[in-house]
């Protein structure tokens, strides 16, 4: 049995009077692909944000790779995000005035040192070898999401957090991105992916289903 890379213990998060997460507990082993599912407002993104060090829990503990994320100071959180987490967002979130390769290099720059050759290689791996110098506005949605994937992977993070990465893509591009995620999973990456899609949910090792901030089910998919 592999040790848990992520341990979520009785996590709660309230915004004013609104309880976004309510006593959620689960573990994720290294190399696992977890799909976090549930209707809008069920707390999926809040959970991802807490694990990614973008938000703090009101109570409970979120331990990632031995680090209790909720207790980190601002500076430590910044290093944590740079070193341990790779984010992929539904809205791609690329810097509009940087080229594809520069967007990847930006993550390297914040982590340690930018290496253009390595950034270009990461883009070649996601099939964008001929789009290195293109600005985001010159790329399709699928291509932008692939740049975001390359950026998420460039610093070899412990955990990939993907918040509806195919939500803004057409079917063909969705398939390309999913194939890449599948490949990442096969190569041993740990992925937590938020999705509304039952089909995508079934691709994961396990599905965590949330409703009104509470953990309803953890379902292991049979492959």
């Amino acid at each position: 049995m592999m040790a848990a890379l992520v341990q979520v213990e009785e996590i709660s998060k309230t915004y004013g009077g609104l309880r976004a997460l309510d006593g959620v507990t689960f573990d994720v082993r290294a190399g696992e692909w977890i799909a976090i599912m549930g209707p809008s407002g069920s707390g999926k993104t809040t959970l991802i944000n807490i694990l990614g060090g973008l938000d703090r829990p009101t109570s409970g503990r979120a331990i990632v790779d031995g680090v209790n994320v909720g207790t980190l100071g601002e500076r430590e959180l910044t290093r944590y995000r740079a070193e341990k987490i790779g984010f992929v967002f539904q809205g791609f979130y690329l810097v509009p005035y940087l080229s594809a390769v520069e967007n990847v290099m930006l993550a390297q720059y914040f982590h340690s040192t930018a290496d253009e050759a390595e950034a270009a290689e990461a883009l070649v791996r996601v099939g964008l070898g001929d789009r290195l110098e293109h600005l985001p506005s010159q790329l399709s949605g699928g291509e932008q999401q692939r740049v975001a994937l390359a950026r998420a992977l460039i610093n070899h993070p412990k955990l990939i957090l993907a918040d509806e990465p195919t939500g803004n893509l057409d079917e063909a591009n969705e398939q390309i991105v999913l194939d890449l995620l599948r490949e990442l999973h096969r190569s041993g990456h740990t992925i937590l992916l938020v999705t509304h899609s039952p089909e995508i949910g079934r691709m994961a090792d396990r599905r965590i289903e949330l409703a009104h901030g509470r953990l309803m089910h953890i379902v292991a998919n049979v492959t």
Partner: protein
Amino acid sequence: MFWRILWRLLYASRSRLALAVLAVASGAAVCATLINLDLDATDKLTREFRVLGANVVISGAQNGDDAATLDAAAAQQIEDLRLPEVVSVAPYLYLSAEAHAGANSTAVIVAGTWFDEAARMNSWWKVDGNWVSGRDNRSDCMIGEQAASRLGLIPGQNVTIRYAKQEATLRVAGIITAGSSEDSQIFIALPLAQELAGLGQRTSVIQITANGSARQIEDVIGRLSAALPGLQVRPLHQLAQAEGRLLEHIRGLLFGTVLLILVLTSLGVLAAMAGLALERRRDVGLMKALGGSVRRIMRFFLAEATAIALAGGICGFVVGIGLSEWIGERVFAVSITPRLIVLPATLALMVLVSLAGALPLRLLGRVRPSDILRGE
């Protein structure tokens, strides 16, 4: 990577940044103009004032046997002090004498002085003919235009001066028009005046022209008083203080205007940057999510503000130097020399102003990435 991102930032926001550069360039132009005027025009005006004559006078002690005169060696002593503010030192021995030229004669005040120093001190005097050359020239003299008129003299003619039982005949080298009491006087070499008066090395007063503000002149007076115990060192108050006040007012006006311009420039930059800050919120949130520290992210924006300051500052400097030359000629009637020190001074001021105006960008450090990624 830093410079690459900075270049992309500048290029991407070029139209908005052009407004900020324009604001800085306008401010820099006015600042460079005023600083150059302050450095050069006030200096030149000080020199212009100096041509109006002496502003410090030294006389003998009020009580005692030699109350009316002092030892002329004091003038040499002052020269030897080599005070940087002192421009000229001229001893004057005044004699009430008679002057004769042909059939004409008149009572005149004869002033024995050092011609070289008197010429430097009174360079604004209009001279028909030439100044006497040589400090101890005993054969030539200068004569005031009223005295020359009474005696019917023109340059090159001779005049005879009689004092007590002594007499000296001198050639008129030049006729002076000063617009004051000097127009009725005859100027001869100090040693000759001393000989006529039989006063050995004595002199009536020593006049000094010193450069600087009223405060600097007070300082010169203090140092001279300390070096010449027993003598009275006094400012020619009327002129010295009026000059000082005028220069202080000009400087105050320039300083106040520069301050006002700096505030206005800062507001101009602030207005341009406020819009930019809104555009950049999303980028900053994303950079923070990717692990960028506030310090590292802010370095981009502060470098951007500095680049604006340098670009605007250099453009403004070029315009400002031209403007200061034009104003110098039109307003102060002096020709202004561009001072190189104005460039770093203008650039430093513009960097400060731009960084102050970049406050909205600095507030971006407070952006919470989760708010941005949630779409707020």
